[in-house]
């Protein structure tokens, strides 16, 4: 609702952002599409030739591709589940009256500030290392064999590291949402005879749905392109056990310097990301309208 004047002003003010993002998307993307139809190895310049869909064929039939697809979904899903369940639990806990709430909140929020590279290095070397790591020490102290996290549960280990980084984010949003819950509603439900569990399911959770939606949306955006954590800890291995799509594309284009193959992979990743985006927007768009 506005005048033609303000509408054209609005278009003018929106345009820098749209044009920049469009440029940022289209220029490299069209180059990538172009490269994806070439046989183009960075180490052999001057040998580029048109090869049709060969790069796509190789990328999509690569046994690593399906592993990577699965791992990507597991990684995103796993981290989302851990952070949301953990975030709700922590939120409920911190919503209680406690001494030193401010300090606890500072402790809980801290991992969010840590660079992904640093957190991966610290977890890998100082905690998960089966010989010198702290977990190995604890295991030995109670008489257990140290567990080799990155070799025997590589994907889970990465999920844990990433979840550690994102738990503060989820906790804070959910905590704030909990704090805005009308206390009278809960009391009314209690008067109506709802148990704690019922109050949680019928009152608290619906109230949190919007906050959970935001957590899912934002985290998915970042989790789809988790990269540094894998590069630092497992290099995608052993085998393809912790290779996600992003890492697979990286391996193609920057380990093998197969720019053609990497570009095809990049385009496939873009398509997949858009499928996820559409799903997400459908699911979430409604929840955000209100």
């Amino acid at each position, binding site marked *: *609702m*506005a*005048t*033609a*004047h303000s509408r054209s002003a609005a278009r003018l003010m929106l345009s820098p952002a749209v044009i920049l993002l469009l440029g940022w998307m289209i220029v490299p993307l069209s180059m990538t599409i172009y490269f994806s139809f070439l046989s183009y190895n960075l180490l052999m310049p001057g040998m580029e030739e048109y090869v049709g869909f060969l790069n796509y064929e190789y990328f999509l039939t690569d046994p690593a591709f399906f592993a990577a697809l699965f791992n990507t979904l597991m990684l995103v899903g796993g981290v989302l589940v851990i952070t949301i369940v953990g975030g709700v639990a922590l939120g409920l806990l911190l919503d209680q009256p406690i001494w030193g709430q401010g300090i606890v909140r500072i402790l809980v929020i801290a991992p969010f500030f840590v660079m992904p590279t640093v957190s991966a290095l610290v977890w890998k070397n100082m905690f998960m290392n089966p010989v010198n790591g702290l977990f190995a020490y604890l295991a030995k102290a109670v008489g257990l064999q140290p567990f080799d996290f990155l070799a025997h549960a590589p994907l889970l280990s990465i999920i844990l590291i990433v979840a550690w980084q994102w738990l503060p984010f989820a906790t804070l949003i959910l905590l704030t949402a909990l704090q805005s819950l009308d206390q009278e509603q809960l009391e009314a439900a209690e008067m109506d005879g709802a148990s704690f569990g019922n109050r949680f399911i019928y009152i608290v959770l619906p109230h949190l749905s919007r906050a959970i939606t935001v957590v899912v949306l934002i985290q998915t955006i970042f989790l789809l392109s988790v990269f540094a954590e894998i590069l630092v800890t497992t290099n995608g291995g052993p085998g393809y056990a912790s290779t996600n799509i992003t890492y697979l594309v990286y391996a193609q284009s920057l380990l093998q310097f197969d720019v053609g193959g990497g570009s095809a992979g990049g385009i496939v990743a873009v398509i997949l990301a858009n499928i996820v985006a559409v799903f997400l927007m459908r699911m979430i768009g409604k929840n955000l309208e209100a």
Partner: protein
Amino acid sequence: MGNIVLKQITKSFGDVQVIPPLDLEINEGEFVVFVGPSGCGKSTLLRLIAGLEDVTSGEISIDGTNATEVPPAKRGLAMVFQSYALYPHMSVKKNITFPLKMAKMDPAEQERRVAAAAKVLNLTDYLHRRPGQLSGGQRQRVAIGRAIVREPAAFLFDEPLSNLDAALRVNMRLEISELHQTLKTTMIYVTHDQVEAMTMADKIVVLQAGFIEQVGSPLELYHNPRNKFVAGFIGSPKMNFIEGADAQKFDAHTIGIRPEHLTLSTTEGMWKGVVTVAEHLGSDTFLYVNVEGFDAMTVRVNGEFSVKHGDTVYLSPDPEKLHRFDQQGLRIA
């Protein structure tokens, strides 16, 4: 200054026409109230005059010049919003000064006008407070202050009292009326409350679904409503409407009779009914009477009149004050 003429203006949002072709003339110095049920287009009409919305077709002229394409700031109008729309990050003084600053007025003149407005509105002691530290009535006055310093051609009020409690509302109503007496500037006032319309207006414009149902002075509307809608909308409690055989007796499709124009008797009358609720207000008593054959009727009687729930009473209309309407709801003269 302050003569506003609307010629054949229409407004559509997409395919929906919210204002069909409409003509209206507002004279200089008039206090005009747009009244109607919510969604009748009265706020949209005000926003069209303000320039916050474009007209789809037609022409708006202010003081004889065509203002249809003129941006809001240049129309020389001031507006008071329902939510007051004060700038929360500015002090009262800065709020009031803002339009003057935007007009790049001489600072000394700015000072003078703000001081004058503050004095008129009793805001002098609050000039350095933020809107958040003021009561609802004070905020309302700041919003008005911000409007008057500009010395506009006309004031536009968009339901300005709806966020105030009942007592304050009566006060502010008086203050705005007084302000109008002092300034003698055109004022256009939008409300859904017919009491505000009746008490403040020189001229009432009754709107329904974007149509102007009737334009006239408060008493004109009260006494000679042009149609059933206006008759039902103006006046409190609402007019009683009777259809069917009883209306036929008066050569009409529908007859309307105001609660204050019914006489009540415990012994005889035209219609017999049973009292369902009696509201004793002290000076007056409103009775809701279930009359056989048609709906409940409202009757206004003297406060001393003693009846209670379940009593049987007889009602008779004052034939002089009877309103008759045809099948289309138009008044039969």
